[in-house]
């Protein structure tokens, strides 16, 4: 069951990973951005976990909505509205407690980030990891694989997409100011959103 408790576990695991990898995310962002991605996202996710603790479990969509509004309020940089929009749209699309509903919600979140950032795959953004993850999740579930396996495939696809951002020239966000000099570095947004998918694979394992 992908219920409120399971989604809360996902958010908590993401927060834990972001905190653990905070310096690495900031290091990536100092190469091609303004060196605040790790600190900003860590602050936002710490606040999101606190906000979830302060509210009763309630509806699954409410877990995603609370995460969204907390990130919007506390992150500060562009990742606030982008991650906020991901969780907001996912909350709006979530219509059931199973893997298919989760995949639909995540896809709606991805579409929201595309619309908000006016970016596409290949622009060296979080979409380069999140897009392949959505595709892998859909493909595995359509093939009848259990959720645990499908999320594992999504995490692998995200990591591969993240690594593939290294040679790309950034076309969106602060890194795009660097032009050709942005090549040679992994995109920090692709790195953090890979943690989001890895957190889902860990926290939702066995909840198929």
């Amino acid at each position, binding site marked *: 069951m992908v219920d409120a408790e399971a989604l809360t576990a996902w958010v908590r695991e993401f927060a834990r990973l972001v905190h653990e990898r905070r310096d690495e995310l900031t290091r990536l962002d100092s190469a091609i951005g303004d060196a605040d991605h790790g600190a900003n996202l860590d602050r936002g996710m710490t606040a999101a976990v606190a906000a979830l603790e302060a509210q009763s479990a309630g509806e699954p969509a409410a877990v995603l909505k609370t995460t969204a509004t907390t990130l919007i*309020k*506390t*992150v*500060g*940089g*562009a990742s606030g*509205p982008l991650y906020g929009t991901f969780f907001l749209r996912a909350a709006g699309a979530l219509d059931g407690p199973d893997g298919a509903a989760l995949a639909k919600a995540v896809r709606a979140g991805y579409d929201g980030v595309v619309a908000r950032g006016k970016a596409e795959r290949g622009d060296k953004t979080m979409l380069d990891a999140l897009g392949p993850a959505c595709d892998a999740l859909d493909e595995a579930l359509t093939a009848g694989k259990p959720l645990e396996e499908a999320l594992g495939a999504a995490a692998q696809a995200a990591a591969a997409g993240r690594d593939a951002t290294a040679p790309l020239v950034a076309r969106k966000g602060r890194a795009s100011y660097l032009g050709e000099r942005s090549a040679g570095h992994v995109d920090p947004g692709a790195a953090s959103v890979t943690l989001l998918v890895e957190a889902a694979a860990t926290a939702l394992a066995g909840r198929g």
Partner: protein
Amino acid sequence: MPVGLVVVSHSRALADAAVELARGMLPGREQSIEVAAGDVDGGLGTDATAIADAVTAADSGDGVVVLMDLGSAVLSAETALELLDDDVRERVVLSPAPLVEGLVGAAVTAAAGADRDRVAAEALRGLAPKQAHLSG
């Protein structure tokens, strides 16, 4: 009621100074100009929930024009629209005008009682005097 204005900036100091400059053009006249600027700790950043609150405060029913600086200010302003009620959202225009020039043009026009679309158009024309002056 005049059209309401909202200033969105990464910096509270920058937003307040821009508002002070615009108000200097409106001696003795009432004009609603709300500010949503800085992060929750007072540092540099933008917050879509604060922008949504500012829009609600500036809205008297005749529309709101939002002026913003750059980068995440634009993303946060768009995200704020998602957080508003449908009837309020329909009355809001996000202006692509440069913040300072656009705000001054919008403030003068709004205080004179123009409607929302006229105010938004005047904000967008904000660079024209400077461009005309420097092109000669």
